[in-house]
């Protein structure tokens, strides 16, 4: 039992936040300009000038650790943190190659993956609504290797979580993320430009707090 990843979409269909935990197949970084800044450092496109450094520092982190608390200051949008991170000592060349191969085996670039996730969620939501004939919401689907859960807020934010197929109902967790970290560090954070269509909602406190919440779950192993 485990938890793979969390996506948050706003009502304009754009992905505003992404975090992952036990993913073996990481998405490729997004193409420049196709995702908003401050969604997630891991999948944000890297500046060409310092690609090598950023790659090294990104891949040097464990894939399970998507936190970067190197700055120590509270910021609203850590767009440039990845670039300001002091370059870490380069890992031995073999491990770097292996890690890069591991990362490149991922199928889709992140922006395309996010669009697919949103498309599936939206189509299923409409389908369930149509089939039930009431305002019933789609909650989850399961395949042989993962399960996708959806929680939609009244304001149109969609919280999507991918977990192990054996986990049961996890919507309450998504609700907890909304009621806890999201309200506290995004909605009540005057520096986060919500609904701007220009920035994601990633900030250090939100990320740390979501991470703590998810790691504390009994299904997280």
């Amino acid at each position, binding site marked *: 039992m485990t938890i793979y990843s969390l996506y948050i979409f706003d009502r304009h269909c754009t992905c505003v936040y992404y975090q992952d935990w036990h993913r073996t197949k990481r998405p490729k970084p997004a193409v420049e300009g196709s995702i908003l800044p401050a969604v997630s450092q891991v999948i944000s496109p890297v500046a060409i000038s310092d690609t090598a450094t950023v790659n090294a520092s990104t891949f040097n982190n464990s894939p399970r650790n998507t936190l970067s608390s190197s700055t120590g200051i509270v910021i609203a949008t850590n767009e440039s943190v990845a670039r300001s991170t002091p370059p870490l000592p380069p890992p031995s060349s073999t491990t770097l190659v292996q890690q890069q191969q591991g990362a490149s085996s991922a199928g889709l670039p992140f922006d395309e993956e996010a669009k*697919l996730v949103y498309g599936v969620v939206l189509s299923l939501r409409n389908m369930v609504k*149509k089939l039930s004939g009431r305002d*019933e*919401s789609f909650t989850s689907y399961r395949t042989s290797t993962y399960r996708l859960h959806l929680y939609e807020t009244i304001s149109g934010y969609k919280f999507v979580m991918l977990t192990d197929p054996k986990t049961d109902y996890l919507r309450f967790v998504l609700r907890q993320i909304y009621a806890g970290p999201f309200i506290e560090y995004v909605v009540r954070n005057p520096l986060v430009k919500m609904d701007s269509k220009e920035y994601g909602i990633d900030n250090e406190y939100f990320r740390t707090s979501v991470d703590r919440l998810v790691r504390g779950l009994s299904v997280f192993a």
Partner: protein
Amino acid sequence: MAIHGLWIINKAGGLVYQRNFADGLAQLTSNEYLVLAGTLHGIHAITSRLSPTGSSSGAEVIEGETFKLTIHLTLTGTKFVLLTSLVETTAEVILQKVYEIYADAVMKNPFHTPEMPIRSEGFDSKITTLIGSGQ
């Protein structure tokens, strides 16, 4: 415990059989069912590509708040979809039996054109015996 309906979707995404049993879901027109079946066919293909680990099958169970769709994909690409209440535990078993009936009453029928809508009294009556009114 209720079975609301059964769909059979051919490998091109066309709805070749659709039947309602117990009430509880909206009554849609046959055109609307055709559109939904096509959508499901597309979604099913995408869900297998979104796997965070290794290769995956397409969606097997899709859940709403009061009902679920259980999908059985055969090796030939035909999809059997059963719409049931959430607590229904025998959906997979029923789909397996529907597949057997399909093989017997549809595939062995010399008057049936593959990939075309199923109009066979034998199939209908066997499904009625298996599922009944769906309650």
